[in-house]
């Protein structure tokens, strides 16, 4: 197996379905249409997938142009195994609600943790400010 240097190795992945994890934690799934030397991506028929627990939901996003620096991870989706998942697809509204609940719960626990640490005279940097978005 040989590979091309840099983003040129992505060329053989063009027109295949890909999952892209962005720096802000979002997950996009779409067909990779175009790339350049900066790994800027053009995704087509993109959906933003939100996972909460065993459920996931897809929000259609259409064409997505991703600036290369924001790509954390990119991988081809095996279309034959794609639907072979234990996860359950739910509607957009449902998944958004789930996400909201999850985030709230996370915030709560975070708050409790900070509180507990504070009582012991410790302080942690507020990571939740970064996790907000």
């Amino acid at each position, binding site marked *: 197996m040989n590979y091309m240097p840099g983003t040129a190795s992505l060329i053989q992945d063009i027109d295949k379905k890909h999952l892209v994890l962005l720096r802000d934690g979002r997950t996009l799934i779409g067909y990779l*249409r175009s*790339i350049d030397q900066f790994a800027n991506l053009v995704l087509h028929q993109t959906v933003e997938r939100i996972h909460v627990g065993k459920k996931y939901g897809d929000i259609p996003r259409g064409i997505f142009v991703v600036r290369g620096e924001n790509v954390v991870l990119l991988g081809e989706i095996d*279309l034959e195994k794609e639907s072979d998942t234990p996860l359950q697809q739910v509607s957009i509204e449902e998944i958004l609600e789930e996400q909201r609940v999850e985030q709230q719960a996370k915030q709560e626990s975070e708050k409790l943790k900070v509180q507990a640490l504070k009582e012991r005279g410790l302080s942690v940097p507020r990571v939740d400010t970064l996790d907000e978005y």
Partner: protein
Amino acid sequence: MFRYQSLEDCPLDEDEDAFQALGEEDEDIDQFNDDTFGAGAVDDDWQEAHERLAELEDKPVAAREQDGPGSEEADLLGEPEDTLAERLTRLVIDSELEDPAIMQAVQTRAPTQQPGGLNSSIWDSSAVLRRIRGPLLTQEMPSVSVLDYALPQRPPQAREEERDPSERALPRRSSSPVIGSPPVRAVPIGTPPKQAAMPNFNQQILCPKPVHIRATMQQRYPAPYGERMSPNQLCNVPNSSLLGHPFPHSVSPVLTHLQRAQLLGGAQAGRMSPSQFARVSGLVGSPLPSVNPKLLQGRVGQMMSPASGFRAFFGAPPAPPPSQPQHPPGPGSHLQSLRPQPQMFRPDTTHLHPQHRRLLHQRQQQNRNQHRSLNGSVGDRGGHRSSHQEQMRKDPYANLMLQREKDWVSKIQMMQLQSTDPYLDDYYYQNYFQKLEKLSAAEEVHGDGPKKERTKLITPQVAKLEHTYKPVQFEGSLGKLTVSSVNNPRKMIDAVVTSRGEDDETKEKQVRDKRRQTLVTIEKTYSLLLDVEDYERRYLLSLEGERPALMGERKQKICDMYDNLRGKAPGQERPSDDHFMQIMCIRKGKRLVARILPFLSPEQAADVLMATARNLPFLIKKDAQDEVLPCLLRPFSHVLYHLPLGTVTSLVQQLTNLPQSATAPAPTNLHLTAVLQNKFGLSLLYLVLSRGEELQSSDANTELMQDNQWTELMLMATRELLRIPQAALAKPVSTPSNLISLFSRYVDQQKLNLLETKLHLVHGIR
């Protein structure tokens, strides 16, 4: 722009000048390419390539000329257009890495041919024109830009105008505001048309990018060649006046949209965006409805986006273009590869009318729904694969990125790895990979586990071409006007290297303390060492003739290293040890000496060894924290191996510090004690003794004097070894095997046993 205007307005009889100006412009194009891609990047073959292209184009024209206008259909079917496209792509791909813009320009020849084929009667009648245009064309090819797409269409439009009298209506007053000249049709044949609508159009296009300035060159040739024709030729060209009339005036209101779109495209085109050109090439590739005089709007919409494009906006039915069936569906043709299903719209909404965008969006929603029903989680897993493969095959959006663009990306990535000397440019990767290969080779030898295929990076095989680019500099100006390109990235800082004179350095040296000076010496010597270590590689790479010179250089550098180590002052016969000790007090210095030793000549190495032995107690004291001295053992033992007995003897003398102790009687030899108590010292002593014994025993007829000296030294060393308490004795790094036999010659059995237990014990502990 100025030039353009002046040329446009130039009098008829000055067309020679105009052509000269064209030539100059051509050089400007070269200059422009140089600026963008660096000198030499594109200057080699594009012109040649274009000439070849022009030939390719001329052939079918000539054929058509012979066949006459009746062969229109035959031409379309007969001339294998896809082979032409193939040849073109090959040409393009073969060419060096260029901006896709330029490559695109080359490519656009194929599509522009298509209108010629479709409306061949016009082109046939103007075959003479083409011949005149020939040389011009070949030179102007790189300057193709968005505007060119309008050009080839002019003749068909003109023709349609003739066909459809309704289209020949005088332009509305508002559409020719600039000069207010009489309608173009009233202009006598042969005079350069004033181009009522054009200047306006040009001005807008011209502003954003120089690409467009060059593009207008083509716009202009109708005027010169129109003038150049003899009356006979003009007879052959009944529509010649129309040639100068690029757009029917009824188009002009529409043009504003077109202009905006093109401006958009043009602004991005300058930034080497391949996709932009892909889109533009799509415009060119769009089949022209040869006989579709009904709706000019329809055609304009098609130009924009030949699929559904502007059609929705312009109110035309979103049916496939009428000319589609006429177009030979060659699989290799540029157009086909670009859009396998012309009915599908392109996902480019940047410059679309809101209404159109809305339509597009709706369509997308539909698509997505289809897609989801295909790929969704809803059951149907058995047939999933087949349905999907079908979808992949049908994927109307596949290959949006042309092969050329892909090549461009890989080339631009490869370019970064181009190197004439990977060892120098990419030292760490090279070494890392060597290590990896060794590892896998070792694994293969051991045969454990299945052979793992390692992924390997593809690196370019071409040697790097040096691109030197000198920015333009104006006298008296402060800054430089630089053009950055792939080969000359923008310089963030242009630092000037100023070499300081020796005087400054020596002055500074006086200020610095001694330690700093030593550090500098070590660094200098290290760079010498690295050079010397590289000579082996360079020697292998060099030609036969260069080798003696290389060897000389290497020798000189080794001498320099030695001098640096010993701090040789010019007048002094034998350098003092002071300088050497300074170096040896620094950890890096010790490692340096260990690395240099193998390169030194035996005499030089012996000198270093002696100096070390002489000052060993001091060094040992200084080495207490670092414990780097043992790294010297191996090179020392190599050096020892080449030394004669005399030198070895004197080395032992130095180690046991005999000469000094002779003057100052010392009941306990402090020097030797210190040596014995140190790991490095003891190991070194063992080494030296062992080597001496080897020489002694192998060489029977040594001089008596030397022999006596050696025996004396041995006795003393043994005495000292026996006397030192066992606990104080250091653990040597290694114990030479012949040590016991060595001692057995100098001590009696009892003492030997004692020694043996002592050393054995030491050995056991180890």
